[in-house]
């Protein structure tokens, strides 16, 4: 891959992240390869949130005093910048506490449609209706749909995964049919790195009139994503995976869908009129933001988006691609290591694959491998990474996952590879 733009100055970026300067386990340099679970925050994000709290904090959309005005402006300005970051309009962006809540929001709103007014009819599900997911979903994009099916009597079906970690679309037309009401799938697998063919899935879903829900948790932080251009109906992502605060996520919904969808959480700030016996509800996005929201967290996420824009998402993606290729190449050279998900092609490159590299080591349990890596200062994740069915499909109970972000460099990859070899030595398998 030829770099289209100037490469990242990782050393300069790293200086923005205070935590990367610390050491772990008796003075080892911290090699943080767990950004797929949660990313670290640059000073700019921490400062933005603090400045808000020290100067402008107030309840938003509820007060008429100056602080309330300023807080509301900061909150709505963040919404506008975050919306622009993913190519949509502000009224299509709902703040949630995390991506998980966003998916649950859609699932519960669909459940609520049965007892809501006629304008929500298109969301009603029942026996005979089908929801389609994939075998590579994070639990967050699987369990809510299982539960919705259980509550409504709808049927859950799913795409399989091929041995090399791609979605098996061979039965696309048999799986997504006139009975399908919703197709929920991940943009990029948090285990395999696999980037799924959104266009093909959306086209088929649209052809049968099914709604689409995109889990963009692992794509939006790592590459330019234009949700409107992708044509999905709903999408979710989390602030904490993209340099922003924990406690905030985003649900994107197409305007006309949010406009006719019944509410989920109810309470203050999402109403139009309340009487003791009944209530009516505000237009979106307020309809879906009950209670005092994640105010400073929205401001922090706005700053994270500004930071990513300044770096350039194209460059972030290229940088992570280079790290991924290096990791795959390095792991391929270590006997007894098997990578889950797409590997390098004959040219030493790989397409449609992001920077989550999960692997197993013959004779070393992932937990034990992780422990050795930790002892070397290398933070990876071990387990099934909230994708248990995928691990069962790949016939491994668990795996080691290294995941990359803009602050990682080739030295981090080298540390990972050294750690893997150390684990093999420690457990006597090399």
């Amino acid at each position, binding site marked *: 891959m030829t770099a289209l733009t100037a490469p990242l100055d990782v050393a300069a970026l790293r200086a923005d992240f205070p935590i990367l300067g610390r050491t772990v386990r008796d003075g080892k340099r911290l090699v943080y390869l767990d950004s797929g679970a949660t990313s670290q925050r640059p000073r700019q994000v921490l400062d933005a949130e603090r400045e808000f709290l020290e100067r402008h904090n107030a309840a938003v*959309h509820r*007060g*008429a005093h100056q602080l309330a*005005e300023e807080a*509301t*402006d900061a909150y709505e300005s963040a919404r506008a910048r975050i919306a622009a970051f993913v190519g949509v309009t502000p009224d299509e962006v709902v703040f949630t506490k995390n991506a998980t809540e966003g998916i649950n929001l859609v699932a519960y709103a669909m459940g609520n449609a049965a007892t809501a007014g006629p304008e929500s009819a298109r969301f009603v599900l029942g026996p005979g209706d089908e929801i389609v997911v994939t075998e590579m979903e994070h639990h967050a994009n699987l369990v809510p749909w299982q539960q919705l099916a259980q509550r409504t009597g709808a049927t859950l079906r799913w795409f399989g995964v091929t041995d090399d970690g791609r979605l098996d679309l061979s039965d696309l037309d048999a799986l997504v049919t006139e009975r399908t009401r919703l197709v929920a799938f991940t943009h990029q697998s948090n285990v395999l790195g696999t980037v799924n063919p959104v266009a093909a899935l959306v086209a088929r879903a649209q052809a049968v009139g099914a709604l689409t829900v995109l889990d963009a948790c692992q794509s939006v932080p790592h590459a330019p994503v234009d949700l409107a251009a992708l044509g999905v109906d709903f999408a979710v992502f989390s602030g904490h995976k993209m340099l922003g605060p924990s406690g905030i996520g985003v649900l994107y919904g197409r305007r006309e869908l949010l406009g006719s969808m019944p509410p989920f959480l109810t309470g203050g700030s999402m*109403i*139009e*009129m309340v009487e003791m016996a009944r209530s009516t509800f*505000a237009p979106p996005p307020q309809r879906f933001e009950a209670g005092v929201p994640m105010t400073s967290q929205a401001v922090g996420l706005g700053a994270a988006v500004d930071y990513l824009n300044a770096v350039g998402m194209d460059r972030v993606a290229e940088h992570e691609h280079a790290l991924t290729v290096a990791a795959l190449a390095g792991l391929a050279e270590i006997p007894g290591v098997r990578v889950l998900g797409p590997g390098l092609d004959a040219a030493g490159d790989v397409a449609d694959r992001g920077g989550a590299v999960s692997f197993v080591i013959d004779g070393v349990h992932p937990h034990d491998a992780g422990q050795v890596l930790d002892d070397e200062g290398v933070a990876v994740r071990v387990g099934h990474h909230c994708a248990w069915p995928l691990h069962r499909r790949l016939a491994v109970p668990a795996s080691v996952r290294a995941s990359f972000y803009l602050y990682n460099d080739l030295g981090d990859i080298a540390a990972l590879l050294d750690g893997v070899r150390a684990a093999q030595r420690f457990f006597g398998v090399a």
Partner: protein
Amino acid sequence: MQLQQMYQEIILDHYKNPHGRGLREPYDAESFQVNPTCGDEVTLRVRLAGDTVEDVSYEGQGCSISQASTSVLTDLVVGRGVADALSTMDAFVELMQGRGQVEPDEDVLEDGIAFAGVAKYPARVKCALLGWMAFKDALARTGGQA
């Protein structure tokens, strides 16, 4: 004291002596609008004669800003063509959403220019627009007749 900027004499006059207040018959369409944060409400009726706004009558409760702006509204639209009234509304909405950056045109907005100061207080913009939203909605409800 920045208060005077917001509460221009014109606004206080309309508040104390609202024009066209009261609900009148006959009317072609009625709209009920409420401000969900403070409970202020307005019921507004529109009577058309062909393409002309023949009467606007209203009743409601609310703060000085919402009451005065509805009073100004009746001055600006009664006796005008529907298209004309709507374009006046657009100018007023633009002024209110302009954060104090929009220069109002007195020829178009007449007493409405007094609300330029309100536009600097985002929490009050909804107050100023309450009656206008009711007018817009009522016009839409006149449907085929317009």
